[in-house]
């Protein structure tokens, strides 16, 4: 029997069904490993053993009674700390929400728990999901389980690392400009950013509302598909959630792959891409060709403008969303002689450097006289990027890119220039702007053993197509290229 902490969802189910282990014992195994590894890796910010064991006991009682088990019965889950969990501290990686316990659960959490999943705790992340390395957490960086002196990526670094380090079977992250896919790539695990509107965001603490999405990390593409099938779908509590039909994603995975047209953007493999990343992505494309995909050349002419437009829109929305942290309703307060002074001190001391930088930039681009030059221009560029995707999907069924132009870097190596850090997000930001789904799947490692990720984009609500191809790639040995 392999170590229970390495199990996938079907393996958990098989072990529970055959009474090899109880849900309670499984949870204990995970907490024991967390206890051993968390000090070094800094993945979990809060654990929720009371709630986890209560849920495990419900599953064990259902097994004893011979009841039919739900899809995720007994599956240990980690939840990014920007997603609300009733009574479990939720800080968004920020001092300004230190000690905050949400009075309700996010819809994604409710759905997963109703499907039998067991919440182990909350994972570390860049403060308010702003960052690409996890070094912006007020509670210290997460370390990459594959290479602990390297970053796990961000902003959902803790959720990616939790799965990679076997400290959860599956986890939830959030993606605004790449924050699921890039840490998935850096930690060597499949990571899915669903279409905008596919998963309810009720209870997700907002960063940039026109871009934020919730999605899963898992050991396998099949497990990611299973989690998506549980969390996807219309939620009356989120007006932006879509009523587009939800497929049975896992059931679609094993269909034969043939004649899929994969679009390869002509100019995506030029300047700025690490040679080892390029080599593995090209090998990945050849593997997909062997599996029956047809390579077609496409153009994404506005990609060069994506980062600039993204940092206008995302920071503008952030400056507005983060106005609510004012020391009145939640989190700590720094006293001041007047109300305004109290706000200023609370916010000045509660927010970290990257969050303040983005609030200042976002407020600037929205301030009187600059709206047309920045925000409106950003929205127009966004329309052009969405058009690039629409036109590409007329010629291709999917689009293949690297997830990140670089492999994981060392802690502290890139903190000096925020702009340089932003520029590494160009492959993921485009899809964020267009609202389309994208998955990062492991696609080999560098000579030093650092993970590389291949990204597959599909058209809006084409998750089944993206997962199908990712699954075939994984089954054909994509991760060992």
């Amino acid at each position, binding site marked *: 029997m392999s170590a229970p902490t390495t199990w996938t969802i079907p393996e958990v189910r098989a072990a529970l069904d055959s009474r090899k282990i109880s849900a309670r014992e499984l949870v204990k195994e995970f907490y024991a490993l967390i206890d051993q590894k968390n000090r070094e890796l800094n993945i979990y910010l809060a654990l929720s053993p009371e709630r986890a064991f209560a849920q495990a006991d419900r599953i064990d009682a259902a097994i004893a009674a011979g009841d039919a088990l739900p899809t995720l019965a007994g599956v240990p889950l980690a939840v990014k700390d920007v997603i609300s969990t009733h009574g479990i501290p939720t800080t968004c990686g920020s001092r300004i929400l230190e000690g*905050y316990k949400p*009075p309700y659960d996010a819809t994604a959490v409710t759905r997963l728990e109703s499907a039998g999943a067991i919440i182990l705790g909350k994972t570390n992340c860049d403060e308010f999901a702003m960052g690409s390395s996890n070094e912006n957490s007020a509670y210290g960086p997460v370390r990459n389980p594959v290479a602990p002196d390297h970053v796990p990526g961000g902003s959902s670094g803790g959720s990616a690392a939790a799965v990679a380090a076997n400290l959860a079977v599956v986890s939830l992250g959030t993606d605004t400009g790449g924050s699921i896919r890039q840490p998935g790539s850096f930690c060597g695990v499949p990571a899915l950013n669903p279409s905008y*509107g596919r998963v309810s965001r009720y209870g997700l603490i907002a960063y940039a509302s*026109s*871009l934020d999405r919730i999605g899963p990390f898992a050991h396998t593409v099949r497990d990611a598909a299973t989690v998506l099938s549980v969390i996807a779908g219309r939620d009356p509590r989120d*007006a*932006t*959630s*879509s*009523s587009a039909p939800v497929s049975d994603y896992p059931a679609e995975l094993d269909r034969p792959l043939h004649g899929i047209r994969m679009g390869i953007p002509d100019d995506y493999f030029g300047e700025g891409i690490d040679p080892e990343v390029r080599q593995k992505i090209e090998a990945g494309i050849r593997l997909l060709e062997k599996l029956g995909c047809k390579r077609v050349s496409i153009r994404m002419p*506005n990609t*060069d*403008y994506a980062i*600039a*437009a993204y*940092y*206008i829109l995302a920071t503008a929305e952030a*400056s507005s969303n983060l*106005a609510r942290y*004012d020391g*009145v*309703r*939640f989190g*700590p307060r720094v006293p001041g*002689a*007047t*109300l*305004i*002074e*109290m*706000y*200023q*001190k609370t*916010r*000045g001391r509660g*927010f970290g*450097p990257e969050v*303040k*930088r983005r*609030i*200042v*930039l976002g*407020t*600037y681009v929205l*301030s009187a006289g600059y709206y047309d030059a*920045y925000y*409106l*221009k*950003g*929205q*127009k*560029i*966004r*329309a*052009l990027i*969405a058009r690039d995707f629409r036109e590409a999907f007329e010629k291709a069924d999917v689009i293949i890119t690297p997830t990140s132009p670089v492999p994981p870097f060392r802690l502290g190596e890139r903190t000096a220039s*925020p*702009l340089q850090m932003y520029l590494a997000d160009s492959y993921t930001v485009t899809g964020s702007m267009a*609202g389309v789904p994208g998955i990062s799947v492991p696609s080999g490692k560098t000579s030093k053993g650092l993970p590389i990720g291949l990204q597959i984009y599909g058209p*809006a609500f084409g998750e089944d197509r993206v997962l199908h191809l990712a699954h075939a790639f994984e089954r054909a040995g994509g991760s060992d290229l």
Partner: protein
Amino acid sequence: MKISREDVLKVAALANLELTDAEVETYRGQLDDILTYIDKLNEIDTSNVEPMTQVVAASTDDAPLREDVVVRADIITEVLEGAPDPEAPYFRVPRVIEK
């Protein structure tokens, strides 16, 4: 230079954000870099492009109007427990109105 010290201070005041002198200087330089980079957007003429204001095209299914019904959440006690200075059923703040 696209952004001055005074610009940063003005924006910080709009955002109710206290910044130290060192922070003002650091952000001024970094925002200058970022805004200079953003200037590259002027390379493309967008005068005939409609701005994208919605990600998923609205359909009547996805944007239905619901009845405006009050639903009691009954979480006042729990919410106030998390507040820095509660006085049930209120949040207390420093004096706003002069005597």
